[in-house]
């Protein structure tokens, strides 16, 4: 095998690893995304009704404000993590 094809194979291998790591990050983030909005904000609201926040309960807070704050944190965390991954796998833009 020539040096060039070995390199190409290595790059393809690296790219696969990068994509797998990315998909894992996305899945974790989307689980959190769903839990705070559809979970705490809607479906699990009755279960959280014991925790009171300013005249109402925690579920109401998640539905009207909390989920938005978590969404923000998620996007910035993902962007930061992915930019690190880009470098780690050597796939960043020149």
């Amino acid at each position, binding site marked *: 095998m020539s040096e060039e094809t070995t390199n190409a194979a290595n790059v393809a291998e690296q*790219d696969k690893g*990068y*994509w797998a790591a*990315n998909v894992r990050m*996305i899945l974790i*983030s*989307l689980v959190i*995304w769903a839990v705070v*909005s*559809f979970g705490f*904000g*809607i*479906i699990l*609201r009755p279960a959280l009704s014991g925790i009171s*926040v*300013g*005249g*109402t*309960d925690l579920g*109401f*807070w998640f*539905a*009207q*404000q909390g*989920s*938005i*704050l978590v*969404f*923000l944190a*998620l*996007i*910035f965390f*993902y*962007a930061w993590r*992915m*930019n690190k991954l*880009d470098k780690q796998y*050597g*796939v*960043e*833009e*020149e």
Partner: protein
Amino acid sequence: MDQFTLNLLFVGASFALYIGIAVWARAGSTSEFYAAGRGVHPVTNGMATAADWMSAASFISMAGLIAFTGYDNSSFLMGWTGGYVLLALLLAPYLRKFGKFTVSEFIGDRFYSSTARLVAVICLLVASITYVIGQMQGVGIAFGRFLEIDTTWGLLIGSCVVFAYAVFGGMKGVTYTQVAQYCVLITAYTIPAVFISLQLTGNPIPALGLFGTVESGEPLLAKLDAIVTDLGFAEYTAAHGSTINMVLFTLSLMIGTAGLPHVIMRFFTVPRVSDARWSAGWTLVFIALLYLTAPAVGAMARLNISELMWPNGTNGEAVSVEQIDNDPEYSWMATWQKTGLLDWEDKNGDGKIQYYNDANEELQAKAAENGWEGNELTNFNRDILVLANPEIASLPGWVIGLVAAGGLAAALSTAAGLLLAISSAVSHDLLKGQLTPNMSEKSELLAARISMAAAIVVAVILGLNPPGFAAQTVALAFGLAAASIFPALMMGIFSTRINNVGAVAGMLAGLVVTLLYIFLHKGWFFIPDTNLFTDADPLLGPIKSTSFGAIGAMVNFATAYVVSGMTKEIPQEIKDLVESVRIPRGAGAAAADH
């Protein structure tokens, strides 16, 4: 200076600013017209995207819908922000890497089919035009109020302004104008909210004031719950509707956000793939500034209105007609009456205006006892709440003028962004991409402007008889985008199995079932009284027409998957394309395909 002159002054000054910027940054080439030459910083891009995104629905309509239903309309808050998570994680970086100008270009290339591109263009047009209807409604209300005329006239005048304004520049003019518009709209939204929050809770941050306490030491939300239930309305903080419908509605808004062409287009304009990720985050920061304030605006306005109508408490005497006519605190009611969106009538002739829920049995008993003959605040259009809010709270005149300018900024910036998406779909994708590939740049720009004009005319005609409040009309547009565009984009990036036939079948299936479901409930082409069902009693269990987008998206995914499984595998070069889109390396500057 009277309020009318003050409003004109604020609106006029803000318009002069936008037009000045538009002229200064006028687009010269097609590339600048569509994508601002890709020289836009993520923070600037985020701010412009936020202005583009926050429309009449967010600014004028949303807090009003929350005010009158409370918790049940939290879907708007979660849905219209949660979509950015999907955008940032699932679409933006890959579409930027792909490096073309429009959403349908990606779909056409990835699914190696000009039919797929054509179907994508049709889906974009259907969703965008529905969206523009909602914007025109908002424009009509804002112009109606500040010129003190009927909303129909407001709509007609507003559409001329939107047209004149949108044909001026392309994306480049629009980007910098939208930064200015963001600043105007966020200031206009926040200042009255801060004043009102201070008045009611002593907390200058409205988002915290919402969960704070009123003067008596009682939590604001507890007080609001008590007052509205006293008047026979549903408890503000409690859940009333179906959980399934709320989940589907929220999901439709989220998926729709990530499928709207004018928002996605924005991520084509950042310099690098990593900027596309950051840009989505910055956009949401700027959106969150308004969205965290909106629920406070809604709750506080509801409390203020209830207390104005019952100045002596819910068990005391209601406000008198005489007071409404003479007390300056109530002068906003007469101004809004002129728009045809607010009205009251002393049905029982007792000289007082009783505001209560006359469909509630307990209140009917109380009414019989006191000689009330039905709710006398006969019309309170939810879409006026935000614009009327500073007047309701007796804030100074300049705040009222500022809010009028802010509402117009919100409606205008989104209408302009949508018109740009529509015109690029018609001229770039449809004409240049399919019908007349040899078109010159000059005639492409001309076609773009003609299609903008056509879209406005359609939106005005349909906007005269809108299918709901502005935010509800806009929600329908999101359902359509959710059912058609988002699944195709996502499968195009995350699957190497979905082929040309599958994607086309999926998009068509998603669009058709969703459109059908909407038309069955809202009337064919939104023509009133042609509907077979109503959202109060929908065709499928609790699922309202505004929530159907999520189901449409599932139909799209399933159809694409099944059809792809039965047809030819995708060619190797497309597999390579998908692989390359997934890796940021070598993104470079994008090129138009001509």
